[in-house]
């Protein structure tokens, strides 16, 4: 559907139209590990008893950390725990960009592409990572190690360009060092990342 005759757009142009993966693996039952269940039980106490739904974002994070992405089973499981409908949970999952509905690589490289990073070479960073990995933004490399994504402003414009790898940060990346970061991640894992203010400042002053 389009609201303008000259403005055709694809089915997924806007996140409100984002569809969950067809044939999404949902036959595999989902349940929190005992540890995650205990964390969930603690989290729910932070909200009023009749407002359990408030815990949906943290509950989905727990599911995502456990499985790597959010399955249909996990959505139904979270829905039952929070007394929501599975459709309500899906509504939330499809809206927020940090939830994955299909498997992602071991390292999700999220390159900030917004203004201050772009002024400092973010487009080059993305290009070099594409060349190095042989994939385009939104794709995962064949080995399942790296997923490349372009994301919007991460809020560290003074350390531009910034790349977020899973939940960890790598700041002040020189565009020409982007490809090296891939090798470093392979060799040393997240230890290869510069981290945030704390770590960076401590490294500089210490």
């Amino acid at each position, binding site marked *: 559907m389009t609201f303008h005759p000259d403005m055709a757009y694809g089915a997924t142009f806007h996140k409100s139209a984002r569809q969950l993966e067809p044939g999404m693996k949902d036959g595999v039952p989902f349940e929190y590990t005992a540890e995650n269940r205990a964390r969930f039980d603690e989290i729910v106490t932070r909200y009023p008893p009749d407002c359990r*739904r*408030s*815990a949906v974002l943290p509950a989905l994070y727990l599911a995502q950390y456990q499985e790597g992405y959010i399955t249909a089973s996990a959505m139904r499981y979270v829905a039952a725990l929070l007394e929501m409908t599975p459709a309500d949970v899906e509504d*939330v999952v499809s809206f927020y960009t940090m939830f994955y509905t299909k498997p992602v690589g071991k390292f999700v490289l999220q390159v900030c*592409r917004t203004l*201050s990073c772009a*002024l400092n070479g973010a487009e080059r960073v993305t290009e070099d990572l594409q060349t190095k990995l042989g994939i385009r933004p939104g794709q995962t490399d064949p080995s399942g190690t790296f997923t490349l994504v372009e994301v919007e*402003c991460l809020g560290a414009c003074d350390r*531009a360009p910034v790349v977020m790898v899973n939940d960890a940060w790598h700041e002040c990346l020189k565009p020409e060092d982007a490809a090296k970061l891939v090798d470093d991640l392979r060799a040393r894992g997240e230890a290869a990342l510069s981290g945030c203010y704390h770590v960076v400042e401590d490294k500089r002053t210490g």
Partner: protein
Amino acid sequence: MDPILTKHVREPNAFTLDFYLQHQGYDGLRKALTMKPDEVVELVRASGLRGRGGAGFPTGMKWQFVDRKSEKPRYIACNADESEPGTFKDHLLMERNPHLLIEGCAIACYAIGAKIAYIYIRGEFLHVQRVLEAAIDEAYPRGFLGKGVLGSGFDCDVFVHRGAGAYEAGEETALLESLEGKRAQPRNKPPFPAVVGLYGAPTAVNNVETLANVPLIVLNGAEWYAGLGPEKNGGPKLYCVSGHVKRPGVYEASMTITLRELIEGRAGGVRDGRTLKAIIPGGSSVPILLPNQLDTQASYDGIQKAGSLLGSAGIVALDDTTCMVWLAENLVHFYRHESCGKCTPCREGTDWLYKILQKIERGEGQMRDLDLLSSISANIAGKTLCAFGDAAVTPVLTTLQHFRHEYEAHIKEGRCTLPADWRGRRSVAAH
């Protein structure tokens, strides 16, 4: 003015409770508890503290609006969803001085009669969230939070709530929706959150930096606070300077400072021997200022007089290599991606704007596209539930206003006429 909020941020242990207590930590809360809640609200009102999130609305007034007659519990919702492009001050504040925010939350709760403050932090700030949660865990056993704070009859809990990637969650009603476990989409206003907020209860939504100012005001008084800056623009202010400058970073100053002092002084000026072309003074949602406006006072009122807004104080300096069509395309890409989709003009319009800008940037534009850009923008601005629509069209309108010749050159030449430069561009061939 010497830094107050960020005085100790470079010290290794600045984020620990022990360090904080050695530097008047929680003295503001201790003092607030000896006052009546209404006196605290009045003090903050008298200080003239204005919301640091972007709108610059007086905080004391916001607190006065909180409905006292409601039978429902009241809430503080701290907006730590810092996502405005060019803004990174709350990031630093929470990471290096988390107890200041926690103290501010506790005082705010006491002032409006709330027992719970939720700090809504953006999902990408997990490393900051860990610092904040560790600080909260330190504060409970020492009696700064929990039941009977510091031996008084006041109970206060502070919880961190993690978002999951949505710029719109920074809009106050969308933040409350997200906190209630829904899509981060704005509500119709009125009613305002002060009357019908979180769970339908009276709620004050305040930015991180705003709440961080509260302990200072309680401790040092309204007059002291107001005297730190020009009239109606009191207190210390955190400025985020980024873009083409030598020393990007967070700089704390009195709002008597000028854009020139911030960009040329604190941030070291434009780098690589280039010249300044334009300034975004308050995050990507505000109109551009030109180099001849560098002597503008960087206060809420000063920047407004110059024709823009201080917004979130995210100052982006752009040098003469920056293509303004590219800049508009980059920012509209952001707004198109972040539009929550609730209002048709914004959801559809940002996509249309992006496609037209992309076309012009590729060198396939036509002159009539420029009128189309203006007309679509006029049909988005003011026609949406929240201010996002107005913000989304600003980069287009402001670049068209000041740099229309660059758009025309793209269309006439079929390409960008500026020398290609790696800092801002894709490879020369693609451009």
